[in-house]
């Protein structure tokens, strides 16, 4: 059976769920067929995946120097 085609707009709606593997196997198959044929949607997918990787990098949201030390000092002062 041929995979049912899916429009670009429908693909964009699912890009984040696709990355998180939060979709059914059927939908996954339709999306992957679309990505193979559509360079634009593949670019949106790659870009979104890049962003997820970038935001998840441990070098972001670093605590300021001395953060822990000052925190434990506060705790020690508690009665």
């Amino acid at each position, binding site marked *: 059976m041929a995979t049912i085609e899916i429009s670009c707009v429908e693909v964009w709606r699912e890009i984040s*769920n696709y990355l998180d593997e939060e979709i059914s196997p059927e939908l996954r198959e339709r999306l992957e067929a679309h990505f193979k044929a559509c360079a634009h949607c593949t670019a949106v997918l790659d870009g979104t995946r890049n962003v997820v990787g970038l935001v998840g990098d441990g070098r*972001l949201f670093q605590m300021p120097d001395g953060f822990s030390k000052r*925190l434990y000092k506060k705790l020690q002062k508690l009665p």
Partner: protein
Amino acid sequence: MSMTQSQLRTNEAELIKSVCGGQREAFYELLRPYERMIYATAISVVKNPADAEEVAQEAVLKAFSNLSSFRAESKFSTWLVQITYNEARMKLRKARPHLYESIDDQQPDDKGDFWPKDYADWRPIPSELLEQKEIRQAVQDAINSLNPSYREVLVLRDVQHLSIKETSTILGISEPSVKTRLHRARLLLRDRLAPGIDGSWINGQPYQKARAW
């Protein structure tokens, strides 16, 4: 050292018992793995490092004093993040009452489709890029520029790697809302970071938009 979820929970339960029994040092051990989580949560709401540190300290003190009320049905980390959110939101409300109201009213529209601004072909981002302070700052600024309800979901899911379920519990929104907001946040961020990532940061060239229309 890696622990399974259940080992971690057992270990934490032991530590909590010790703290409640008067051993304060056990609290430091309990807290240590979550320091960055607390800080990241705080800064995702209050946005500046000095306020975030103050919020983190207040949240930790509160967690310490209320530890005996912690119920083991929830995860310790979830409980900590919830306390931090409450402190951070309180701080924001105190500092900017009018602004806070307007942010609160401005609930994002989770319906309707998102149209990517363009389809520039992205090459993978070299990891060394984040060694540069200005680039870390640019990414941070882009995250800060998101609507708070998108930013909160993004920080819990993609920065702190919490599950959809945990995120939904912490923010008090449904799991489908978590997914929709995360989706919006990621695509918006992609649009906002594209000029840097695809242009000046990597090859020193201005960004070439590749619009389909």
